């Protein structure tokens, strides 16, 4: 392995904390793969070996799991993962067009990364925000109700080194590595940040209040 001593020591401490959450150590494998991505920006050969050693598995067993899940990247990922939903509903509402214009604008295709390593584009499947279609995700934060212009602006800002803010989520999008650490189950202090619940989330509650409807039983 090529991790330096300090990195390896920190990884080991973090991994032990992850493993302690489960009655059976192997359950820690998914979060450990997220943890490896928080160091390397992808599931590296070193990362696979680290997980294998920690959980007493073979590297082949770890690879078999890592290749099953789309969030684990086989090549160094961009600092920002930009996903455009092109599942049916978002695609029909404009997601196909957003993807096409964004991909042409950035000059990379699906699962490809810009030369500067900043942005990886991805066509993603339904991300459970259909009431905000068309949807884009940047490092797994919500960018709701997108247009080709808004999507290109977000990516232009990222490429220019500016912070970007989701429509629902934290005050700014953290990097792919930072987000991967959260996905390994480590809090990052951003949970109370909020851009508002969102119109579609509250629309039914609003209608009920306007009409004086309550679930008080009849």
């Amino acid at each position, binding site marked *: 392995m090529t991790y330096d001593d300090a990195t390896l020591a920190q990884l080991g401490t973090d991994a032990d904390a992850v493993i302690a959450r*489960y*009655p059976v150590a*192997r*359950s820690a*494998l*998914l*979060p450990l*793969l*997220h943890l490896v991505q928080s160091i390397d920006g992808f599931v590296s050969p070193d990362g696979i070996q680290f997980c294998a050693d920690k959980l007493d598995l073979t590297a082949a067993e770890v690879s078999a799991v890592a290749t*099953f*899940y*789309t*969030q684990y990247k086989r090549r160094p990922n961009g600092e920002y993962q930009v996903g455009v939903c092109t*599942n*049916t*509903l978002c695609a*029909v*509402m*404009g997601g*196909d*067009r957003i993807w*096409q214009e964004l*991909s042409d604008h950035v000059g990379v*295709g*699906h699962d490809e990364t810009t030369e500067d390593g900043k942005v990886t584009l991805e066509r993603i*499947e*339904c*991300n*459970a*925000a259909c*009431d905000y*279609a068309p949807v884009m*995700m940047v*490092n*797994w934060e*919500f960018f709701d109700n997108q*247009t080709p212009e808004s999507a290109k602006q977000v990516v232009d800002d990222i490429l220019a080194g500016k912070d970007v803010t989701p429509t*629902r*989520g934290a005050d700014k999008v953290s990097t792919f590595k930072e987000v991967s650490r*959260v*996905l*390994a189950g480590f*809090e990052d202090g951003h*949970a*109370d940040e909020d851009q508002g*619940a*969102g119109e579609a*989330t*509250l*629309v*039914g*509650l*609003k*209608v*009920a209040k306007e*009409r004086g*409807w309550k*679930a008080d*039983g*009849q």
Partner: protein
Amino acid sequence: MTDTAPAPTELTPVLSATWDLEKSWSIGTYTDNGGYAGLTKALAMAPGDLVQAVKDSGLRGRGGAGFPTGMKWGFLPPDDGGPRYLVVNADESEPGTCKDIPTMLAAPHTLIEGVIITSFAIGCNHAFIYLRGEVVHVYRRLLQAVREAYEAGHLGQDIHGTGYNLEVTVHAGAGAYICGEETALLDSLEGRRGQPRLKPPFPAGAGLYARPTVVNNVESIASVPAIVDKGVEWFTGMGTERSKGMGFFSLSGHVAKPGQYEAPLGITLRELLEMAGGMREGHELKFWTPGGSSTPIFTDEHLDTPLDYESVGAAGSMLGTRALQIFDETTCVVRAVMRWTEFYKHESCGKCTPCREGTYWLALILKRLEAGNGTYADIQQLLDTCDSIAGRAFCALGDGATSSIISSVNLFREEYEAHVRDGGCPFDHAASALFPFEAADTTGARA
């Protein structure tokens, strides 16, 4: 409520009642508005009485299958002294479904309280919440909510001085629709590829780590505190004869005001559309899914079908997750179905041949048809291939993949034939989008 001309259905915000409050996700806001009152009551009850109460409430699984929740709990074998587990399915990924994510974002303590009550009821001392990995802010909120619950003494050792102990682990997945299938979810939670298991044994007998396990959807578990706090009769006062209580109806697509509408089961799309401001201006309803992309599609003929398990089933579809994806007359049904089919192909876990091979060929044929290169025989081939998958696949993913195909060919065969006859798609895809653009081409983007 049983008159021939029932009163118009009213919305019933229960889980969503606090979502517009300041810091709605915090334990302070939740508790100040009646949160954790259900837990206090539950801990004073006998666990068996809690299971009976949820049975009596008629609560049915809100994750799609609609299996009675209390009955699922009742299937656990008698206590043998070993561990038993509660696993919450928070892997919300069914296309169109978008109710659990806002629930966990806006009021994660509703779920945490439900987890504690349920765990106490079934004798579980370690519960898991399996969240899909692609929603980082939701994970932040859940991690914080669990920490707050520990700090408040709702979790950990000797909860509320009762001697009851419970640990909760919130686990993030890593991108795989199939992990919403409960046994695939368990394999994934055990650190393996998320592939479904042969049933039986069912999770109640041999689930997580081969121990007795209850797997329930987020909305099911989040409904439990209100049932305990407000009572079974309050809950059964909502809904229909066999579909009790309230649930989220998630409207998306070409409607004026898409979003979450929490209503009694049995509400109709016509009623929901009235609340949602109707279809987008100048357009009319063409087709819709009652419960996500795995449920056969409906048309305007089903505007008055009560959205409860029995009525939707009798009309040939499934209530599913109440994910109402609504499309207007500008939408090409072949394009919509093709994209869903590509999704199932992508998400098929590969374990069984009918689903792995079948979804592959379905996607190829649909792509050819949609592009105008198909033949009339392709339409029959689609149905034949569906027939080789439905009922023959290892899990419900394969069945779900055939739903939109079979129903759309039944309802819109002439539209499939038009693609063959005209050698192309007769629809202007730009007309379906929410923003204007030149129609030239929307299908040839870098794939």
